[in-house]
């Protein structure tokens, strides 16, 4: 597959005024030829004001739609202005844009590339329902996509033109929909997925909760997202257009 010529970096941000400007700067340094789009998901802090001081284009959502909602807005922007790849980088600074060129280069062999944490690095000890959930995710999604995936919920990913056209139509806004369900959608559309190891920095917000109840709820939601991805009907045919 040819490498993309026009890459749009989409940064979904919700209340990230402290980190967003730095992320934009790092992205521009790592990918000088790419355009940057910041999607402010109806933040209640100064994210939008900070965003407007950067060199990035800014989309301001009038209501909070979640990461999936912010991303679909980004995909529609990309489609409207003719980009042929979209790179997603979180606004909280946990992804290192230095890894971005390697992710984009991997588009040579795949339609969607996921930046995955090194197994072991930065990992915390997980057991119980959360561990089952992570295992179930890794196994099921590896089987569905035919690629070895260890960090399916990573929000550091890049997709090519075909995939972004699909995403502009069907990008779930539900929790886990933007990560788990999209992988199932991509596989069902006959597109290929690959994984590239990246390093993740510590999140400013701290670690996910270890409470067993919340982990069990997480497991349930994982199963639900996987099931919905399989069950739902999507228009995979090329040429089915969103009004862009």
């Amino acid at each position: 597959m040819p490498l993309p010529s026009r890459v749009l970096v989409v940064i979904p941000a919700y209340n990230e005024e402290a980190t967003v400007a730095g992320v934009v700067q790092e992205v521009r340094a790592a990918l000088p030829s790419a355009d940057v789009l910041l999607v402010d998901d109806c933040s209640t802090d100064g994210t939008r004001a900070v965003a407007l001081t950067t060199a990035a284009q800014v989309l301001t959502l009038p209501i909070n739609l979640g990461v999936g909602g912010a991303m679909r807005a980004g995909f529609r922007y990309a489609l409207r202005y003719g980009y042929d790849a979209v790179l997603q980088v979180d606004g909280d600074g946990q992804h290192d844009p230095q890894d971005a060129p390697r992710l984009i280069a991997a588009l040579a062999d795949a339609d969607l590339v996921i930046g995955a944490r090194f197994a072991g690095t930065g990992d915390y000890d997980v057991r119980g329902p959360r561990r089952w959930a992570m295992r179930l995710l890794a196994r099921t999604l590896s089987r569905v996509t035919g690629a070895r995936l260890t960090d399916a919920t990573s929000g550091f990913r890049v997709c090519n033109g075909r995939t972004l056209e699909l995403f502009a139509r069907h990008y779930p806004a539900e929790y886990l929909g933007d990560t788990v369900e999209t992988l199932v959608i991509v596989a069902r559309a006959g597109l290929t997925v690959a994984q590239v190891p990246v390093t993740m920095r510590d999140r400013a917000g701290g670690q996910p909760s270890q409470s067993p109840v919340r982990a069990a709820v997480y497991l349930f939601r994982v199963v639900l997202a996987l099931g919905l991805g399989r069950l739902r009907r999507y228009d995979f045919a090329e040429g089915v257009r969103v009004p862009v």
Partner: protein
Amino acid sequence: MNDVKIVSLVGGIAIVLVMVELLRRRQLKEKYAVLWLAVALAVAVLAVAPGLLDAVAGWLSVADPVNLLLFVGMLVLLSVCVHLSWECSRLEDETRSLAEEIALLRNLVEQREPPP
């Protein structure tokens, strides 16, 4: 006429009047009004002629007519709930698309030059 009859008749007529008034003030879409008008009319009819319920229960071999009434009532309410959930999901999808469109247009209107 006994008390029960009067109460159900008044209830049925009241629902019809409320629906007509809501429609008249353009507060209710026709598709929702039709359903509630039908329910109200059914209540009024059964109030005037309770024998009707007994007859229908007899045809369907339902021993107690009240059970039939409760069962049908439950089914109607369940389908209304499902229908509203469906409408709600559709509205959320539409809202989402509108929000995206607003964001795209706002970017165009107030911001820098769009990319070539």
